[in-house]
């Protein structure tokens, strides 16, 4: 524990040259109702992603078309979290197109396994079990493991006693350690 005696006072931060703010410029999205609805939907999808005090995911039947659109956006890192949230939200709707899309995603060998796992979860226990039966031999390890557990109705297997996590023998991805230093540790008394 750090010694509170050494808690430094807040030091003034130099303001960036020209000031610390710039005015935002917004467009009235009233002329583009689907865009406005999509922005609102995206905010709701991402509002509760932390398990601590996270608000529940809230979507309604009126969101179906946009959720199907968002769940199909598969290009680029920027779509990743949002897409998975859309996939999960489809499971909250009582709609055949949503269920059909979730089934397709879960079974698709092309898709990233996180999208497939989200689709499996979104299907709910009964429908997921039916799909999971077909994924017992899936080439993707994470999908196969989860599907087998869903199909068999089994919980994860815990080690018999609390286990120490093994060291990862794979080396640092670059010379610089994650502490920021470049890995150089001098052996002399420098």
């Amino acid at each position, binding site marked *: 524990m750090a010694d509170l005696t050494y808690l430094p006072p807040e030091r003034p931060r130099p303001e960036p040259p*020209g000031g610390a703010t710039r005015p935002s410029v917004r467009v009235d999205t009233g002329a583009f109702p689907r865009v406005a609805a999509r922005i609102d939907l995206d905010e709701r999808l991402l509002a509760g992603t932390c398990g601590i005090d996270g608000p529940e995911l809230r979507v309604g039947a009126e969101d179906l078309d946009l959720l199907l659109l968002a769940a199909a956006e598969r290009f680029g890192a920027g779509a990743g979290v949002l897409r998975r949230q859309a996939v999960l939200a489809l499971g909250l709707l009582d709609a055949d197109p949503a269920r059909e899309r979730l089934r397709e995603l879960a079974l698709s060998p092309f898709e990233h396994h996180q999208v497939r796992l989200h689709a499996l979860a979104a299907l709910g226990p009964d429908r997921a079990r039916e799909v999971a039966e077909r994924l017992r031999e899936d080439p993707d390890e994470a999908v196969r493991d989860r599907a087998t557990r869903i199909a068999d109705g089994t919980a994860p297997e815990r080690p018999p006693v609390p286990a120490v996590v093994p060291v990862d023998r794979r080396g640092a991805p670059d010379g610089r350690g994650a502490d920021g230093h470049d890995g150089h540790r001098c052996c002399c008394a420098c």
Partner: protein
Amino acid sequence: MPGTTTSVLRTVDHVVRPVTAWSVLDHEPLDPLPVEAVDPAVLVERLRVDPAAVEVLHGGAAGAAEALRGRPELLDEVRRVHAAALLPGETPLVITDVTTEPVLSWTPATLVVHYRNPHEEPVVLASVTVTWAGEPFVVEQEVRADAREGTLELRLDEEHTLPVGPAGLDVTLWRADGARAAVRHTVLVLPSNPLAMALGPAGARVTGSWSLRGDHRPESDTFVTECEITITNGDPRPVAMGRSMSWEFWDGPVGGGTRVEAGTLTWSAPITVPALGAWRGSVHFSSPRGSGVFGRYDRKEDLALAVSATAVDGRVLRAEITARTLLAYGVNIIKVGTFGAQEHADLYAAVDRMREVFEARDITLRGVDRRLITAAQAGGYTTVGSEDEYRDMLEAWSCANDYVDVFVVQDFAWAGYNGYAGDIPGPATKGGRKDGVAVEKTGYTDGSGTARLDVETLALLVGHEVGHYLGLAHQETTDNLMRSSSGVRGAAVDYEQYRLMFPHGYVVHL
């Protein structure tokens, strides 16, 4: 016998990225081709795959599953084709690239956004969210009908010019039917005056915004201070710099306090700052016990480091930065299940980025232990599907040290969460159902078909959950790390949050 004055341990020249694509974390250009409209031979040639992989894709997902059962070795190649092609019926909006001319300080700039839109509905709205040394701001722009042909320009006008330094540009496009595409692009704003120098901490991707850290090395009883120096050139001609630079550590303001120690350093090779470009190097100062710098660090006092460099044409550059001992905590990064080589690299890039986020508030990492629970060992915990499973995992696995356990799992398939912390604050002891945090790995497939992790999102996600563990609750101020929504979460940590983390049992002074 080591001396009792601060000396330069070594200097390192860095390879520098183009100032118009400054961050390794930026999006990679994409250009998916419609699989129906393209000769399969083009895809085979472009992606260097077995023609059968393209054929499998033509069969759609259902047919593919069947085909791949017969030829499972094709799976990786099929995924590469899938990542680079639009399937029949797919009409997504895709930003293929963002380009700029070099951006100069206090000068309007134009971003050129290249996109592919195979749908009949047009792109109607474009926006850029700018993250820089000040508060983030947004510039939205309606897309004119005559600009809807695959390229549009987003302008940062006279009211939105920027000072020298890095700027993140998050570009988003919206189509009239609600489809969306987004990418991140980073530039280094160059000085229009036209030469400038900035100092930053070790390993930083940005400069000039926070403190250097005095890092105590018990093995030699020295403090090592690593400083990165960036010289930027806004002139269309290269600038030659002298190889020597002078440095001074000050107690109190530079020029107004007490000069503690001073010296010169010499780079091993001539320095040339490229035209409209940047040069970066880092210098390691070693301060043994008995030196003035060691004494100040040992008493937890702040120092200021000033560096001065001279161009061959006589121009003098000066920059300064605070140097202090930092608070620090350690993390055990625990991969659960299989991570590919690129995912492994992305994960540790995210940890490095998270370190920068905390260092901006004078808290650093004192260590990163790399740990792995293989899929075979994990017994099903590669994915977390409920709070019980999450807490069972914390209870079942632990690392016997005083670092925060960070489990990075293959997926959170649970109530829309992508991260969770054992408690606020988490315990400073091991064992039990609260000692750790867990996050999903934020995976995606890039345009080449490689499994990647979203480094920026993952960095903020891990930082957010560790923030909980060290005592922080949600805080909904602009750009704060502890915002509950990952859609608006930023990298800011304020002084009150720093004060709250200070007494956690895993936080120590370096």
